[in-house]
């Protein structure tokens, strides 16, 4: 793990970080990784990875649509709306 990884993590997490603090973040994150790495000592060959801590299977729901959608309520805490659309800063492709 290096400083670029810290910057990438921050970028992927959409957070701004103070350049002055990067070194201390790096130390913190390295410590966390070291802590987690202890688990690598366990032999997990021939063990199927679990996808979920509960040993259960997914319940399936009947395909019935329930149209009880009040757009006004659902948009009541949106910052910016127009003609029913959510407005976000322009995204261009």
């Amino acid at each position, binding site marked *: 793990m290096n400083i670029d990884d810290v910057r990438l993590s921050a970028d992927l997490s959409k957070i701004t970080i103070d350049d002055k603090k990067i070194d201390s973040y790096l130390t913190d994150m390295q410590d966390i990784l070291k802590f987690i790495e202890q688990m690598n000592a366990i032999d997990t060959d021939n063990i199927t990875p679990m996808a979920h801590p509960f040993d259960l299977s997914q319940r399936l729901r009947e*395909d019935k649509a329930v149209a009880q959608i009040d757009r006004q309520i659902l948009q009541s805490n949106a910052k910016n709306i127009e003609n029913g659309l959510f407005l976000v800063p322009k995204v261009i492709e």
Partner: protein
Amino acid sequence: MKYDVVIGLEIHAQLNTESKIFSLSPTRFGADVNTQANEVDLAMPGVLPVLNEQAVIKAIKFGIATDCKINNRSIFERKNYFYPDLPKAYQISQFEYPIVGAGILEITNEKNELKNIGITRAHLEEDAGKSLHENFTKHSGIDLNRAGTPLLEIVSDPDLSSAKEAVIYAKKIHALVVYIEICDGNMQEGSFRCDANVSLKPRGTKELGIRSEIKNINSFKFLEKAINYEINRQENILDDGGRVVQETRLYDADKNETRSMRSKEESNDYRYFPDPDLLPVIIDNKLIQNIKDKMPESPYNRLKRFIDDLDLKEEDANLLCSDIKIADYFENIIKIGNLKPKLVANWIIVELMGIINKNNKKWQDNKINEQDFATLLQRITDNTISGKIAKQVFAVMWDKGDKPDNIIKKEGLQQLDNDDEIKSIITDIINKNPAQVQQYKDGKHKIIGFFVGQIMQQTKGKANPAKVQEILKQQLS
């Protein structure tokens, strides 16, 4: 340099469920913006996804129809990406353990060769919402009606070698998902979309070149054009000694070109991990067998049977097999009326589909039931009416929904089959046209067409044509 073209397709087929894959919102297309998106689709805090049974069943149907492996255990994972049309900031998809595993689809390519195209997998995922850019300057408008619509992403192996071949493969998948009724196949509405991975390698070499991915193509015509444009572009780069950049590109139909999608380029790090909100999906073999037992005959078998056993032209068989409802209608009419398949095929394709197209209607608008259609065709084979009169009757059936026998009776269309009556009309016409009779006697036998025409005119087309010919020849000689 000469290159080999290597293409793989990712096809997104929207599954035609009533509700979304993880929420109770309806999936109807064309509703007012953000009226089909509930708190789950909007990713409000605390909401949880619950998997739609039909999405799973429809995915299994696809696996059965293509003979792909169906995995007894599959896992939903989070695919992380930050984009406003996906409010959770991740898409629920499948990655390492998809519901449908590998299989093979056989196609007949543009050189008329049989070719096996590998299907890598087909997995379930949710669709994203739509971003609208046109009417805003500083903003984009977000409509989340489509967010959470179930998609089956069908991934092919990189086995396709030309744009035409890719289109043939995509069309075959399209026909299949429509036929087994898991997708409405409407490409204009985005129900069936393709991404194409295209790369080139020096002819005959093994190692794959660097690929670019063209996203979201929603017509077969554009698919062919976009791939050909991309082949050309990469060829030019490689010929100039350059390197193709691995990237995502968009096809611009107006300019017929592909261009780089810069926005998603930098963070192509999806960090998949199992979604803790969803448990593993366990499908037992009994369920698969149950679904299999209820599935119709595969469209490929049926097509083959129509051509080999019913002796239909390939083109006609294809048309009839394009929709399971049409194919069923066709076969039921044959059975009910004990009719010749070719006669029924002709009437469905020429008359029924003709009238549907002429009136700008869809197959679903056809109100003529199988029994009535069979009766009409029986009246041709039992000589009650001629084929020509049958078309008149058919038009009335389409317009008014009346029964064929009622129409024939009411309008007095019954074929003139009585020998004496036909004889007297013929005698009358022969007497009135001595010049033509002389021509016939002089050996100009084609003139018989003139008499037939006169007789048909007088009987308004109701005389039995075979009988007319027979009696005419007797009287003229």
